[in-house]
């Protein structure tokens, strides 16, 4: 098998670029903690309403301007549907589904994850700016999927 000289250079450069991407991603994920949402906790999907903390969805302060926001996703909404968050707060979203697969995304931020029945998924975001933020479902979940939302007010 014969490789043209230029093709050798091209494939080496291409290979190096791909390795560089992987190194940057790996360092950012494993050394700096920017993992994609991959939470491993379980919950019985038929008993979400009886299981803490999802029996009382909402904001729980856990530190200095740091909060857990426990939420449920269901056809076709989230609990709670309206949330107030203090400006500058660091918020850990913990979300599970009571029925089918849902999405959980806040446009303009990196908050974006799948919410599956039986699992809790988790993502963290710091709200540095005041304003209204939309939580929307970006995984098709049924006939009123496009109505599935919640509203965050940061002030």
């Amino acid at each position, binding site marked *: 098998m014969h490789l043209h000289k230029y093709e050798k250079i091209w494939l080496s450069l291409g290979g190096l670029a791909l390795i560089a991407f*992987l190194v940057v991603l790996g360092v950012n994920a494993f050394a700096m903690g920017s993992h994609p949402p991959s939470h491993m906790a379980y919950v019985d999907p038929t008993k979400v309403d009886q299981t803490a903390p999802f029996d009382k969805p909402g904001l729980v302060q856990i530190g200095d301007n740091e909060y857990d926001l426990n939420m449920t996703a269901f056809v076709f909404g989230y609990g709670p549907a309206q949330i107030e968050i203090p400006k500058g707060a660091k918020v850990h979203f913990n979300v599970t589904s009571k029925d089918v697969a849902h999405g959980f995304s806040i446009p303009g931020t990196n908050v974006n994850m799948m919410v599956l029945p039986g699992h809790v998924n988790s993502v963290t975001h710091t709200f540095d700016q005041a304003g209204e933020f939309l939580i929307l479902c970006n995984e098709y979940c049924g006939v009123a999927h496009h109505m599935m939302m919640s509203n965050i007010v940061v002030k």
Partner: protein
Amino acid sequence: MIHRGIEHRAADLSLAYVLVAYLAFGVAALAGLLQGLVRGGMIELPEFITYYDILTAHGVLMGLVFTTFFIIGFLFSGMAKTMGGLTPTGTKLGWIGWAMMFFGTAMGTATILTGEAAVLYTFYAPMKATPWFYIGAALLIIGSWVAGFGMIHSYRHWRKNNEGKLSPLFAFMAISTMVLWLIATLGVAAEVVLQLIPWSFGWTDKINVVLSRMLFWFFGHPLVYFWLMPAYVAWYAVLPKIIGGKVFSDSLARLAFVLLILFSIPVGFHHQLMDPGISSAWKYVHVVLTLAVVLPSLMTAFSMFAVFENRGRAMGAKGLFGWFAKLPWKDVRFFAPMLGMLFFIPAGIGGIINASNQMNQVVHNTIWVTGHFHLTVGTSVTLTFFGITYWLIPTLTGREMSKRINALGIIQTLTWAIGMLIMSGSMHFMGLLGVPRRTAFTTYLDHVQALKWISYQKLMAIGGVFLFIAAALMVGIVLYLWLFAKKGVTEYPIAENETISSTPRLLERWPVWVTISLCLILIAYGYPIYDVIQNAPPGSPGVKTW
């Protein structure tokens, strides 16, 4: 007397596949038009059908039916051309597969249009469709296996009769494509047959959701390579002939295909980067393997440019880029696939971004992703298939494409390209704003964030209108070439090798490659699948949420 480009039984078979492909394509294009207009807020659907019924039909008919039928028809034809026909058994298996696939498609489509299966083409559990939808899907898959066995039968027969000879490049690539398909579809077949069908009949009451998603995406990523590889077949083995050149390097072409088989399967977690229940370390393993599969595409890019440059220089082109102008831009058989290749540049870049682990958070399930695969499968692959169709149907029917059809074909190709620039461009842009995919028209109760993107959805709809016009033209041209074009002789274009071949024999040792592929799969999936079965959360009952 009809002069067909290949043996007539193989020609009939191939034609039967291609015609069903375009039937599905036509229906799905209409659905696509409606989706764009609904999302643009320009029309509302009548009571009896929802946005999601139509979206399911579009995804299934475009992504699974149009592609699979066209691919199998095209591969059969090229194998018959380069191996001097198919075996009688091979042809028979081809027809049995066709019938199973056709029946499965009809069944599946009926359940979708009657509102029994608005689960989209990914049919994620625990949304539960009627069992007949899953049975239709199973028939489509198993039928494609039978067709694949038909190809393998003919290939083995050829190799027995031509001992010591290197198999034709086209046949090798066709078999590679089907080998990939046979391995990849095992995942979805297991999901459908072992999990979904018993559960939707009510024989089991709960389902392991993450397992079902793993099995689906075990199939879902190689699926996109199953779409792409036949386009590569046309680029490597046909296009050089159309421009009057030669294959750039037979051995590199084969090596690229082997690498595609090896690295396109053990990578499915890049579709589940945002899922809970899969550890971030395993996700990263799949990300590494995903970027490895970029290499054969980098090889392909080099080979294509080289074929064009060699040909252009042979025709006297000067300077660094003089060869570019020498290419036969006015020949639709070249023009359509060439535009497809150019579209593959942004398409491939988008793919690398999507697969980049945590960066997927920016685009996951936004309409950026929809914009991305309308570039890959919806343009690179589809325009290449259009380019093939312009000569394939006349070859199969013993007719000729006239100058006027060629000119119409150029217009058709351009219309598609413009429509896609508009539609896919606005989809990419909106995706970065966070606009969700798979979502009917909504302003989220006039939320300030949502109101910012509403007008771009109109732009997307306008792109869809261009695309629909191009699709309608294409269906018309297919009918014309099939039934009305002038009788004549159209040669089946197959490119020859540039140099005396020095292709290593190892590339044709299938047991070696299949074994390595299975080992890679075991590494990437063995433990995660064991783990998700052993340590599963409580299962989910099914629901119909539409």
